[in-house]
Every structure is written in C-alpha cells, then in structure tokens.
C-alpha cells in the first residue's frame, strides 16, 4: 500500500467518523456525563442497586440468552433459504425477495396484529382447528409467551440473513465446488469443507446483526412476550421515563453498549484476517434450474416455509384491511383520504407515501455513502486498531433510543448545530441506525477481493478512484444493494431511533398508523390496517424496483432472457 492510498483511506474513514462523532458520540457522552455526574458530583450510592439487586443481573442474562437463541433459530431457518436463493432459478424469485423484506418495515403493533390474526386465540388457525375437531377451547395458546416473540424475531430477521448470505454466496467462485466434486467429494462434504468455510464471513456478519437487533428488542418482546419478559432496553426506558432515574438509565445504557461493543470487537477481530480471495466476478449467472427430486424438494420446501412464516401473516393483515362488519369493503381505504381531515395532523395518504419514500431515500443514500466510505477504509486496514474502529462504527445499532433521544436534547442545542426541532433529525436518526447495517453488508464482500487484483490495476496505471470503480465497486455491487435495501427499510419502518426524538409532525406512513391506533373505534382500526397494507405494498414495490436496477447485465454469449 503506498502513501497516497493510505492517506485516501484515512480521509475516507474521516467522513463516517465525523458523522458518528457529531450525531452519536457527542450526544451520548453528554447525556451520560450529565446523568451520572449531576452538577459535577459523583454519587455511586444511587447505582448500588445495580450490583446489590439480582433483578438487573437477571434482566441482563435474559437479554443475552433470548438474543442468542433468536439468532440461532433465525440462522437455522434462513440458511437453507439462502442456498436456494443463491443457487437456483425459479419463477417469482424477485417478487419473493421483495416480499420477504416487508416484515422489516412493519410497526410492532401491526406485526402483533398479523400474528394474532393467524395464531391468536381467535385466529384463523385456532378457529379452523376448533371447527375441525369440535373443540371448546383454542388448542394453540402462545399468547404472551416465549414462542410468540421468538417467532416474531425470526419473522423480522429471516430476510436479513437470507439476503446477506445469499448475495455473498452468489459471488463465490462456482469452479471451487465443481473442483471438489470432480475430486470425488460428496455434496455434503463439498458443502462442509468448501462452501461453509467460504461463507463464514457473511454468516457471522448476519448473525452479529441479528444478535444486536434482538438484544435491543423493545416492542416485540413487550407486546408478544408480555410484560413478564424485560430486556435491558425496556428497563432503560422504564428507568428514564417512568421513574425519571437518569443515572440508572445511563448506567444501564453503558452496560448495554459495553456488552455489545465487546461482541462486535470480537467479531471484527475474527473477521479481519478472513480474506480468502476465492471470488468470482459473478457476471455470469451462476444460478440454475432445480434439477432432480432433491433439488426440487429443497426449493419447494423453502418456498413453502417462507410463505407460511412470512407471507401468511402479511396476507392476514391485508384481509383485515378489506373486511368490515358486513363483508368485504374498501371503506377503510376510502376513509384514509377524507375521514378526519379537520385535524391539523391529518395526512393525505399520498402525502404520507411521498414523505415516507422521501425520508427513506435520504436515509438510504446517506447510509450507503457513509457505509461505503467506512467499508472501503476498513477493508484495506490490517492494523491492531482496525477491530476497534470497526466495532465503534457499529455502536449506534446497540444503543437505546431513549438515551440517544435525550442526548440530542442537551447536546445539539446551540448554533451552528441546533437541530433539536429540525425535520432533518429524523433522517439523521435513521441513517445512524442504518449505516452500520450497510457497513456489515459490504465489508465481507470487499475483503473477499484479492489485493493482487487492485495491485495489478494500480501497476497498469489506474488511479485509486479508477481501481475502486473498476474493481471494488463491480465486485461488491450485490452487497451494496443488500445494504441499501435494509437502510431503506429501516427508515420506512420509522425505527425506534426516532420515536424518542423531539420533532415536528413528520406525516409518514408509520406515524399515521400510530395515530389511528391511538383512539378506539372501528374506522381507526380499519384505517390503520389499510395504511399498513399500503406501507407493505409501497415497500414491496420499492424493493422490487431496486432489485431491477441490480440485475446482472446479460453476458454477450448468452441469448437474452
């Protein structure tokens, strides 16, 4: 690596770091200091409960094991799906990909409704079973249970694992497995000895994201698990808002950040030297039609599972939005346009769609740019500090939304950055959560590119930018797309980050859904379901379009498909 390239990398890294410093580290430090040292004094007595009471240890332990279990289960279910999507061609693949990312944008209350419509005491499944076996009581009782929220965690994170791993998988050089099979390895041996080790960077990256996600789970556990289960995130909210015990909330936030930082650092350290370099530029379409009974069963089985887990709850929601007291109706959709126009917070449905798309676009572009800069810089570094910086960039994902929202109030409060009541804070908060995602998606794939290729390009006289454009960008294109998709969905779903930020009325689709659900009445419920359906449709269409932009150009010697 020459000096010029090094300085370019450093410069690139400075951009995401500056963003992080201003919108994350500074507010967080301020709120932690002000909470723990009110008026400059330190009173450790107020935190003694943290070590004296077994409650907090129990909460920490529960948070860790439920996140680990959720991650394991998600991997277990999603990895076969990743194989199917990486290796086979089948009808409706693009649509399936778009559809299965939809859960990511649904507000928790709506997801709960979807699951209850299916599995609840008077859900479709229970009513069917009761009618079939003439039972008195619903046979499936998972309301407020461990199983219910684990299911929801899988529902939310399935597509994350599938997309991240399958995009990486599709980029692996198929001649490697072909060589193994030529040498007499069985398909299982080939998978275990060749494919799995090669996939490890992508699998661990996905696992890490799922783990952090479930670790900081708030609404899902509260609503589907019931109040008997509490994560650290829930306890932070309780301490900060209900009990106004800011020192305790700050201390718990630091514990949460600390645990996650350690894990992310460990992950970064293990992944740092994982550059295997068995890449293919993958402009050849490596997927094939499923041939043989086993392959067909695999594809069909996975699609069936996917439909059952992911699509049937979504379908149940759509049905709810169309079913009134007297049969099928479009009344709820029609009501969206005029029903309570008098309110100053009324949002015309088209405006809500436009605003949501706008915020999501801004957040996506920002997150991709920052993630790309960070990943490019980190991929070239091998020093000891790399793991530290890598883990540091991931922290926003592991930070309690309440804590950060309160941090903004006391830190971004004077010119030139008085952003406390600005609309800009919403996409910024979304970007903060989304860009670690993008980083995790892109980094494994950049590291996969052998240094020799870049060196060869440089030797041939290409400028660093040219090398990036001709080598790095084409080869990580797929990963960038996956990152972009998730950055987009994080913002579309109005993720927790902005729930506790003071902001002007934003009039996005999730905000409208919450407004409907805050008052009783059939029309409110119906309109919430209708708006949720629109949110799903718009998101699905956006993902499908994004997918179109990334389709591999047809290689010259193939007939166009």
């Amino acid at each position, binding site marked *: 690596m020459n000096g010029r390239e090094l300085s370019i990398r450093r410069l690139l890294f400075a951009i995401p770091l500056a963003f992080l410093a201003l919108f994350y580290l500074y507010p967080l430090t301020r709120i932690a200091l002000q909470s723990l040292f009110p008026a400059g004094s330190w009173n450790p007595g107020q935190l003694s409960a943290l070590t004296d009471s077994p409650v907090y240890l129990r909460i920490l332990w529960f948070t860790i094991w439920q996140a680990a279990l959720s991650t394991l289960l998600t991997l277990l279910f999603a990895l076969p799906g990743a194989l199917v999507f990486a290796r086979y061609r089948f009808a409706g693949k693009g649509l399936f990909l778009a559809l299965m990312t939809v859960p990511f944008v649904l507000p928790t209350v709506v997801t709960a409704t979807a699951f209850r419509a299916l599995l609840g005491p008077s859900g479709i499944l229970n009513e069917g079973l009761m009618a079939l076996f003439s039972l008195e009581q619903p046979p499936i009782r998972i309301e407020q249970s461990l199983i219910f929220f684990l299911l929801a965690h899988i529902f939310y994170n399935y597509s994350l694992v599938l997309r991240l791993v399958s995009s990486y998988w599709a980029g692996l050089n198929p001649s490697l497995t072909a060589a193994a099979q030529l040498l007499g390895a069985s398909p299982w041996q080939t998978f275990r000895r060749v494919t799995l080790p090669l996939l490890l960077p992508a699998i661990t990256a996905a696992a890490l994201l799922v783990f952090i996600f479930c670790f900081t789970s708030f609404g899902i556990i509260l609503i589907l698990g019931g*109040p008997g289960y509490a994560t650290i995130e829930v306890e932070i909210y309780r301490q900060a808002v209900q009990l106004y015990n800011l020192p305790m909330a700050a201390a718990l936030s630091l514990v949460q950040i600390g645990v996650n930082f350690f894990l992310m650092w460990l992950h970064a350290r293990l992944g740092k030297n994982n550059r295997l370099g068995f890449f293919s530029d993958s*402009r050849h379409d490596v997927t094939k039609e499923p041939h043989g009974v086993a392959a067909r069963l695999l594809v069909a089985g996975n699609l069936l599972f996917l439909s059952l887990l992911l699509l049937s709850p979504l379908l149940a929601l759509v049905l709810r939005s169309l079913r009134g007291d007297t049969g099928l109706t479009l009344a709820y959709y029609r009501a969206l346009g005029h029903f309570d126009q008098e309110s100053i917070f009324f949002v015309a449905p088209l405006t809500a769609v436009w605003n949501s798309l706008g915020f999501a676009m801004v957040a996506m572009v920002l997150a991709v740019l920052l993630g790309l800069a960070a990943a490019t810089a980190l991929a070239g570094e091998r020093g000891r500090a790399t793991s530290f910086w890598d883990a540091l960039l991931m922290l926003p994902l592991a930070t309690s939304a309440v804590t950060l929202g309160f941090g903004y109030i006391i830190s971004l409060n004077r010119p030139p950055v008085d952003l406390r009541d600005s609309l800009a804070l919403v996409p910024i908060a979304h970007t903060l959560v989304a860009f670690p995602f993008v980083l995790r998606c892109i980094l494994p794939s950049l590291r996969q590119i052998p240094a020799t290729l870049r060196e060869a390009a440089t030797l041939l006289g290409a400028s660093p930018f040219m090398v990036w454009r001709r080598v790095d960008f084409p080869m990580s294109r797929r990963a960038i797309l996956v990152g972009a998709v998730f950055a987009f969905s994080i913002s579309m779903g109005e993720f927790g980050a902005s729930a506790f930020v*003071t902001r002007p009325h934003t009039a996005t689709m999730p905000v409208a859904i919450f407004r409907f659900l805050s008052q009783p009445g059939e029309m409110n419920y119906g309109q919430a379901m209708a708006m949720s359906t629109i949110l799903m449709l718009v998101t699905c269409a956006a993902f499908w379009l994004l997918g179109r932009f990334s389709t591999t150009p047809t290689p*010259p010697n193939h007939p166009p498909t």
Partner: protein
Amino acid sequence: MSTCQPVHHPAHRRFLRSCRRFALSLLLFPLLFPLSAGPAQAERVLTVMSHDSFNISRSVLATFEQEHQVTVRFLKSGDAGAALVQAILARERPLADLFYGVDNTFLSRALNADIFAPHTSPLLATFPPGLRHPDDDRLLPVSYGDVCLNYDREWFRRHNLKPPQDLADLLKPEYRGLTVVQNPATSSPGLAFLLATIGRFGEEGYLEFWRQLRANEVRVATGWKDAYYGHFTAASKGDRPIVVSYASSPPAVVYFASSPMAEAPTAAVVTDHNAFRQIEYVGILKGAKEPELAGKLIDFMLSPAFQEDIPLQMFVFPANPSARLPEVFQRHAVVAERPAQVTPAAIEANREGWIEAWTSAVLR
C-alpha cells in the same frame, strides 16, 4: 479467476451508464426533497411541545393564528413521560414556548423541576376546583379523562353475565380470565388504573386486590394500543371482554363506527371510587421566546372555542364547564362523579415503590 470478463464490454458499459443514471437520480432526490417538506415562514412563530397524542382542528387553530398574526408549530416528543423529561433536560435552552400534556401523575415532577413560568388566566376561576391546582399558577388544567373499566356489552349479553359495576367484581370466579389491564411501568393509563386501585383499596389493601386479580387470570398488556386492539373483544378479535380504557372511549367507538349506532357497543364503569381522573395541564416554559403570546395561547386553550374542540380531537373532556359537549358525547359519554383520590405529591413520592411492589405482586 477464469470467470473474469474484460471490463469494457458494451453490455457492461450500458449497465454502468444505467447505474450512473440511477445513482444520480438518488443523489438529486434528497436535494429536492427538503423543498417540498419545508414549512412556510411567517413573521412570528409560537412553538408548542407536546406528547404524541395531542390533536386540534385546523379551523380552530386558524382563528388563533389569524387573530394574533402568528404561526403555531407543534413539536412531538414521544409519550407523556418522555416528552416531559425532554422538556426538563432542555430547560437551559427551551425548545418551545409552551408545553402541553403534563398530567397529574407527573405534575409534581414537572413543578419540582421548576421549568414553568406562572400565568394567570381570568377564565380559570370558573373551572371546577377539583381540576385546578390549589396554590400553583404555573400549570393550568385543559382537559381530563377518567381511566376506568370498559366492557363489551354484547359479550356480556351473549354470555348471560352481569357486567362489572365495581373493581371488586373482577375478583369473582365468573370473571376469571376476562380482564386485560396495562403495565403501569410502561403505560400511562396503566399507571392511572393502578392509582385507582390504590385510591379505592388504600395503600394497605391494593396489593391484596392485585394478588387476587392475578389469581383470577388477569392479563397484563404493555400499553393501551396493545390492550385495546390486541386483546379486547369489542375491538378486533381479542378474547377479553373487560379492558382498562377511558370513560370517553364509548363515544369514540360510536363516532368512529362505519355505520350509525343507537347504543355504544362498549360501556364504561364510573361508579364511585372506581376510576382515576387524569388531568392534563399546559404551561409556559421558562425562557420562552414569546412569553406574552404563549399566555395568549393558553387563554385561548381555556376558552370555549378550543375547549369544545377537545372531545372529538383528543377524546377527553374539556376542563371548562361552560364548553358545550358534542352530541355524541352528550349521548354516550359518562363522567365519574367521585373518582378515586390520590394526590400528586403522594404519587411523586411513591411512584417507584408502588410500581415495584405491583411488579413483584403481579408479574414475578
């Protein structure tokens, strides 16, 4: 590396071009977006900070804006508790001129934090003494709602069961597994209902009530949305015919029905000492940029024009007794004559202890 293709193939160039076009349009989008989202600027701006449930009619606000030549902006800051903490944290450089939505469960916290400036409104004298804070003019009552039991009339009719008339009814064996309440640690109606039980059964008796309620298979939901739309039989397909909600929920059900209703499908239980009255206050923040205008807005909020708008926008009752209730409220709403009593000072002093004791008794 045998699969490497030459980089400058025409198809690839075409692809790169389309990528560039796409990237360009993506970059332009954010630049154009703020233009469409930016607010129109007027000369004077008055900022109101509130929780997410605040609402008002366009036309009502317009009369104030026109009369005083001012634009009123609203900042939303999460639930009632989170909004208040943010207002307290921002005290050195306040975010807004007014804060709407301190309720009596947080009243002492707000007053102790000393973030509000006093304001005397001539209208206040006509308000019922129970709503006014006896010796403090910093927070003024705007609305109130009675947190109480709601039940599904049709369900009780169908099951030939007498609907609950008293909190103690919930402990009867025939009410086993019928009730859903909210967690007081995460929900403001949940806390209000816990306070109702403390007012009703006293500090000595409330935990025993909750232990027996737990034995009678009460379900605890996280918040109002989850309890009402997730578990209540009269809304969506829940399996609990009794829910903790507001005495003004039945008129909302009638108002938001798809077809006209003669009778509300749900009813509220407001018998003596079985409901807790949540009162919402407004106040001028210390250090407000427009304190005088803020005072004008408060006077407006207490006047009939705003007060009569409250029921159908926020589905609570106006604090001003001269405000006329809309027809749907007159026909379907009830008010607790004698709500359970717990003072704000007692709430602030005991909130943590009560919630902890409740959590141990009901959840652990």
